[in-house]
């Protein structure tokens, strides 16, 4: 079936099987491998992208369901060489260990600050409920988001 939507401000058009998941479409059809597949059961959050500005798990959305929508992935955050403030904060605070969960963490963190510009540590930890870091590196991830919130 035909599908057309925007990915990082560029229109993409394609012919997909209805069962194609958005994350597979991004990775396999568009070659955008920044969005990861961790658990593939909507638990871990490695696949989080934004659809019309809200964080969603792209392993639990059909590519066809993005029709006419605006998708933002981790690749769409930096402007040229200039990192998004959240990416810069993760770099500054070393908010990653192996890095596998990082794209999803950053996409969720941006949505978190959109909804709550000045979160407490507890609110950050609650807000990351849908993202799992298998290295258990939450401490610096929380610190990164606090730094990004202050920089706003």
């Amino acid at each position: 079936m035909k599908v057309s939507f925007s990915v990082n401000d560029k229109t993409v058009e394609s012919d997909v099987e209805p069962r194609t998941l958005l994350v597979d479409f991004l990775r396999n059809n568009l070659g955008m491998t920044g969005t990861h597949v961790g658990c593939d059961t909507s638990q871990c959050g490695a696949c989080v992208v934004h659809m019309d500005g809200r964080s969603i798990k792209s392993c639990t959305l059909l590519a066809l369901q993005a029709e006419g929508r605006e998708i933002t992935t981790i690749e769409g955050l930096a402007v040229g060489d200039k990192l998004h403030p959240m990416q810069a904060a993760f770099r500054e605070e070393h908010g990653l260990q192996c890095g596998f969960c990082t794209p999803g963490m950053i996409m969720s963190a941006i949505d978190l600050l959109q909804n709550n510009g000045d979160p407490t540590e507890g609110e950050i930890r609650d807000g990351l409920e849908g993202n799992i870091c298998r290295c258990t590196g939450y401490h610096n991830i929380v610190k990164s988001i606090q730094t990004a919130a202050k920089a706003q």
Partner: protein
Amino acid sequence: MYRFNYEAPTSIDGTLTALRNNSEAKIIAGGMTLLPTMKLRLASPDYLVDINNIQSLAGITKNNGSIVIGAMTRHADVASSALVRDCIPCLANLAEAIGDRQVRNRGTIGGSVANNDPSADYPAGLVGLGATLVTDRREIEADDFFTGMFETLLKEDEIITAVRFPIPKRAAYMKFPNPASRYAIVGVLVAETSNGVRVAVTGAGSCVFRAQAMEVALENEFTPHAIALLTLDSTKFNEDIHATAEYRGHLVNVMARRAVSALT
């Protein structure tokens, strides 16, 4: 996932036509349960009718002393609605505690109640608050709607369009969540309504139910003490790796008392 065909109508009529033309069709709302179930091949509908493009199904309004929530309203929107926070704060809290942020951004009230998972939060919300379900053809009281594990009164081609909540005098929802999924191991909603006290329990049994003995006791005296010694028969309660039936029975009382404490 097995192959399927897909259609996203923009009207209720279009949805009904799609459902009637495809006997194995299934509606997809937020998809937070259906898609994972299809990925595990536990469900394999050969036709998906996506109702996400029907604008009239989403939104929250106040009408004649009731809050009316469109079936496709996302959990995140119920949680952040000033109207819901103002009139039925416990419903906003209930929505806020479902799954995680990303699930709440997609999951819908209509999808949750149509699925009727025995551990879902919304069934307790609807039954506890004495809500009415509005479908494309009729109205159904929440007390009648939930008929068993994953079973409801909905016909194969029937679509929930909205849920109407009468505004209670006071109400609180307390749940003991599974720490991983945030589903309720046990969740209890206690409400004082114009028609008396209602106590609805999710997670404990095969389907949401009302704890009548607690309602009677609280009607007499609305204090945690009034129900402290009331134990429910837990022999038919759910039992899994997370909790035994007996433990769930114990939790019902604890959650009910916490809900009453929050209101007194």
